[in-house]
C-alpha cells in the first residue's frame, strides 16, 4: 500500500521582548536559576498580570506578514492544570479568540515549485518554567526564570503532505520570525520549538487517519528524523493489523525514537475560561496600520529586489535571503565596494565554507562585511588576482588586518606594468628556445607552460590577462 503523510505543525516561538509578557522581569537566557522570576512570575498570593504591549506588537507583525485576519478584540484565557513549574496552576493563553486568525505562508520545495500552507491561528501565551529531573537525587529542581516569557504559538492547517514539506514550512516560519525581529530563532535555547501532528492515509483516501502529536523537537535535523520514525511506526502498526492511538509522543533524540507520553484519555481537561484579571486586547485600525508601516522587508520581497537591483540569479538571491543576517551581510559587502555577483559568490561559497569548517555563525565571522568588500574592491581594480585573493582572505581570517594591509605586508600587489611583464617574458623566451620553436611549429598548448613560467617568476602576481596578451604577441611574432 502507498501511504500519504499528513502533517500539521504547532510552533512555539519565544518573542524577543526585553521583559516578560505579564511582568517586568527580564527574559534574558542563561541566568542563575530562579533569579529572573519576580513575585508575579512566582504566582504569589495577590499578584496580578499586566500585559506587555510589545508582545502584542510582535504578534501583529507576524499576523501582517502571513496576511492573516487580525482580531480587533482578542481574549486571554486561563488553561488550568497542575505542574510544579507552572506557579499559578494555570497558564495564561488565548483560546477562543486568538489575536491572529487565518493566514497563509508560501514555501519553496526542492523541485523549485511553491506551495501555500494555511495558518489556522497564532495566539499569545506565557511560557512555563523548567523542571530539572537530573542532579537532584530523587527530587526535581524547578527553574522559574522562563516562566512568563512571551510565546506566540503558530498553528498550521494539516496541509503538509510530506516530511520535506513540513521541514520546509518550519524553516520558513523560522526564517520569517527572525526576519521580523520578533524571535531570536535560537533552537538550542528553546526559542523556537516544534510540535508536530502526523497521520497517514492510503493515497486517494479523503478522511484523515488517526494522528499522534510529537513534542520536544528542537532542531530541524531532529524534526526530520522524528517525523520519519513516527511515519514508519504508524505504517508498521497499520500494516501489521494494528491501530494508531491518538496520543502525545515524545521524541528522544539520543535513541532516535518516539515514545508515548499520554493518551487522549489521560489528557487534561484544561477548563479554559476568560482570564478575569486581564481586559480583552483591542486592536485599533490605527495600531494595525502602524504595524503594517513598520514591517521590515520580508524574504520574498528581498529576494525579488536582489534579483532586480543586483542582477543576481534566482538561485543566488534565494540563497542569500535565506537569513536576514546573511542578506544584510551581503548588502554590506556590496556597500563597501564589492561587485554584487562576486559578493554573492564569496558570501555563499568562500565565507560560508570557512564558517562552516570553523563551526562559526555568521555573526561570529572574523572577516567583517566591510573587510570582505575591501578585498573584492582590490580584485575588481586589478590590485590582486582572484587566485591571490584567497590567500588574502585567509590572512584576513587569521586577523592579519584588512585587504590592503595584507596585500602590502605580503607584497601580493599584482604586477600590471607592461614593461616589467615584457622584460620578464623576454627573459623566459630567451631561456627556453626549444619550447619557443615547438610553439611556433604549431604546438600552441605550450602557452600554458610560458604562463606558468611567468607566474613562477612573479610569485603569481603578474596580471594574467596582460601576461597572455604579451606572450601571444611575442611568440607569434
Amino acid at each position: 500500500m502507498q501511504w500519504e503523510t499528513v502533517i500539521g505543525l504547532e510552533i512555539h516561538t519565544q518573542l524577543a521582548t526585553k521583559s516578560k509578557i505579564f511582568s517586568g522581569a527580564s527574559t534574558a537566557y542563561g541566568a542563575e536559576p530562579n533569579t529572573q522570576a519576580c513575585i508575579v512570575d512566582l504566582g504569589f498570593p495577590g499578584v496580578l498580570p499586566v500585559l506587555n504591549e510589545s508582545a502584542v506588537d510582535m504578534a501583529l507583525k507576524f499576523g501582517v506578514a502571513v496576511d492573516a485576519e487580525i482580531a480587533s478584540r482578542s481574549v486571554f484565557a486561563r488553561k488550568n492544570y497542575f505542574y510544579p513549574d507552572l506557579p499559578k496552576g494555570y497558564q495564561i493563553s488565548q483560546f477562543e479568540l486568538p489575536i491572529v486568525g487565518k493566514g497563509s505562508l508560501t514555501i519553496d520545495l526542492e523541485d523549485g515549485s511553491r506551495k501555500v500552507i494555511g495558518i489556522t491561528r497564532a495566539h499569545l501565551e506565557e511560557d512555563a518554567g523548567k523542571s530539572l529531573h537530573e542532579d537532584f537525587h530523587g527530587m526535581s529542581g524547578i527553574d522559574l526564570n522562563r516562566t512568563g516569557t512571551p510565546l506566540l504559538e503558530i498553528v498550521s492547517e494539516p496541509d503538509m503532505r510530506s516530511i520535506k514539506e513540513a521541514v520546509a514550512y518550519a524553516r520558513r516560519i523560522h526564517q520569517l520570525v527572525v526576519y521580523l525581529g520578533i524571535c531570536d530563532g535560537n533552537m538550542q535555547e528553546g526559542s523556537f520549538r516544534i510540535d508536530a501532528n502526523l497521520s497517514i492515509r492510503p493515497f486517494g483516501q479523503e478522511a484523515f487517519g488517526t494522528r499522534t502529536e510529537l513534542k520536544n523537537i528542537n532542531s530541524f535535523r531532529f524534526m526530520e528524523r522524528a517525523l520519519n520514525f513516527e511515519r514508519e511506526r504508524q505504517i508498521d502498526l497499520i500494516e501489521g493489523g494494528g491501530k494508531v492511538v491518538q496520543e502525545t509522543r515524545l521524541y528522544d533524540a539520543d535513541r532516535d525514537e518516539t515514545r508515548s507520553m499520554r493518551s487522549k484519555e489521560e489528557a487534561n481537561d484544561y477548563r479554559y475560561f476568560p482570564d478575569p484579571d486581564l481586559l480583552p486586547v483591542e486592536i485599533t485600525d490605527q495600531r494595525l496600520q502602524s504595524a503594517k508601516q513598520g514591517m521590515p522587508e520580508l524574504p520574498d520581497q528581498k529576494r525579488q529586489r536582489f534579483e532586480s537591483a543586483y542582477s543576481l540569479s534566482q538561485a543566488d538571491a534565494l540563497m542569500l535571503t535565506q537569513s536576514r543576517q546573511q542578506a544584510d551581510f551581503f548588502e554590506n559587502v556590496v556597500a563597501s565596494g564589492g561587485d554584487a555577483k562576486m559578493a554573492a559568490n564569496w558570501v555563499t561559497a568562500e565565507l560560508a565554507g570557512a564558517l562552516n569548517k570553523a563551526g562559526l555563525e555568521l555573526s561570529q565571522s572574523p572577516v567583517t562585511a566591510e573587510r570582505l568588500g575591501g578585498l573584492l574592491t582590490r580584485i575588481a581594480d586589478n590590485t590582486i588576482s582572484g587566485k591571490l585573493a584567497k590567500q588574502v582572505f585567509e590572512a584576513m581570517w587569521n586577523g592579519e588586518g584588512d585587504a590592503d594591509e595584507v596585500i602590502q605586508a605580503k607584497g601580493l600587489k599584482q604586477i600590471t606594468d607592461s614593461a616589467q611583464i615584457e622584460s620578464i617574458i623576454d627573459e623566459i623566451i630567451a631561456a627556453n628556445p626549444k619550447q619557443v620553436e615547438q610553439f611556433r611549429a604549431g604546438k600552441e598548448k605550450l602557452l600554458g607552460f610560458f604562463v606558468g613560467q611567468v607566474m613562477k617568476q612573479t610569485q603569481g602576481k603578474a596580471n594574467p590577462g596582460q601576461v597572455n596578451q604579451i606572450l601571444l604577441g611575442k611568440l607569434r611574432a
Partner: protein
Amino acid sequence: MHDQSIVELGAALRAGEFSSVELTRHFMQRVERLDGDLNALITTTPEQALVEAGSADQAIKKGQAGALTGIPIVQKDIFCTRGVKTSCGSKMLDNFVSPYDATVVERLRQAGVVCLGKANMDEFAMGSSNETSFYGPVRNPWDRERVPGGSSGGSAAAVAARLAVAATGTDTGGSIRQPAALCGITGLKPTYGRVSRFGMIAFASSLDQAGPMTRSAEDAALLLQAMAGFDPRDSTCANETVPDYSSTLRDSLEGLKIGLPREYFGEGLDPAVAASIQAAIHLYERLGARVIDISLPNAGLAVPTYYVVAPAECSSNLSRFDGVRFGYRCEEPKDLEDLYKRSRGEGFGAEVKRRIMIGTYALSAGYYDAYYLKAQQTRHLISDDFKQAFEQVDVIMGPTTPTTAFGLGEKMDDPVTMYLNDIYTIAANLAGLPGISLPAEPVNGLPVGLQIIGNYFTEAKILNVAHRFQQETEWHELTPDLNKQS
C-alpha cells in the same frame, strides 16, 4: 477617645490634644482587653503600630498631617502586608509572610494611618458568618452568641467594638456590606475597578472589590479617598479621576429619585427589618427625595449566577496553593500527586473545598456551556436590569440583609440558607456597581443595614445620601455594651 470619628480624632491629633502614640496605645489596650473574646484580629502588630504612630506624630508636628495621619485602623487579612503574616483566614497561609504590600496597604500607609493588625475573616473570603476562618469565628459585639457576618467579619466587629477607628474590607458578594449591616457600622463597596486589587488575595477576580468599613459615611469618604485611584499593576483598575468625596457629603437631597425594587421587599424579608427600612425611606422623603417603585426582574437569578461565577474563578485562583512554593505543605509527601492532594486537602477548609469543587465542575468540558456560559449570560441580564433602573432613578435602596445577625452555628450545616443571606448584596457585585450599608433603626437591640446602590463611579453620591441620613439619625452612633455578659 475610642468613640470619636476619624474627623474628630484627626482634628484632636492636629490640635495636639493627644498624640498618635497615645491614641494607638489606647486602642492596643482595648484590643488586649476585649479581643480575646471577640476574636476580631488574627495578628496584632503593636511594635510596628507604635513606629507608625511615632512617624505620624512627627508629621503632625511638622504640619504635614493629612486627614488620616495617625489614625489607628486594622487591615483585613486578605491584604498582603510586607513582613507580616497574611493568612487570608486559612491554614493554607498560616505560615505565609508576604514579601510585599498590597496597593491598598501602601496607599493607606502613605496617607499616614497606623495599622494595629490584621482582621479575622472567612477563609479566603468565602463565607457570610466569619465561621469558616481557620482562626475561629468572630463574635458579634452586639450579641456574642451571634455572628458578625462575613467575610469581613473581623473588620466589622473591630470597628463596631471600637477596637480600631476604621478597617478595610473586601466585598465579592456582600462581604463588606453584610457584616457592616450585622455589626451596625457603615461599609462601602466601591464600583468594580475603583480600588486596586493588587496585593488583595483573589477570591473571584471579576467580583472582588476593596472598600472602607467605618463608623460613618463621613469617615468612609476619607478612607476611600486614600484607597481609590488608578494602579498600573491592576489591569482592571479604572483610570477615572477620583473626586473629593468629602466635599459633596452635605449636598441637598431635594429631588433625589430613590428606586425601591419590589424584589427586595418580598418573601424572606423579616417584617421588622422591612419596617426599619421603610422608616429610613420615610426620612429620605422628609429630606426631599422622591420614592419610585422599580423592578429588577432578574434579581432572583443573582444568587445562582453568583454561585457559578465566583466558584469558577476561585477554583482557578486557588490553584497556586499547591504546597510547592509557599503556604502549607503536607508532611512527607510520597510523590507529586500526594503532595498536591494532601497539601490542598489538609490546608483548605470545608467551604473552600466545596467552592473549588463546584467551580471545577462548572468549568469542565461538557458542563461549561450549561453553567459558566449560562451564568455569564444571566450576569448580563442582571446588569441590564440596573442599567434600565438607573435611567429612572438616582439611587436604589433596600435592606442589606433579610434578617438581623443570626446565631453562631445556626446556618453552618446548610450552605444554601447561608448563601441566601447575601440575596440583596450579590447583584451589585455581578453588575460591578457601588453599594453602601449604613445603620437603620435596630430591631430587638440588633443592628439593621440600609443598603444604597448607586450607578457606576457615583461613590460621591451614595456617600452624600448616606451622610445626610446620618446627620438626621443616631443609629450609627450606637455602641454595643461590651461589658454585658452573654
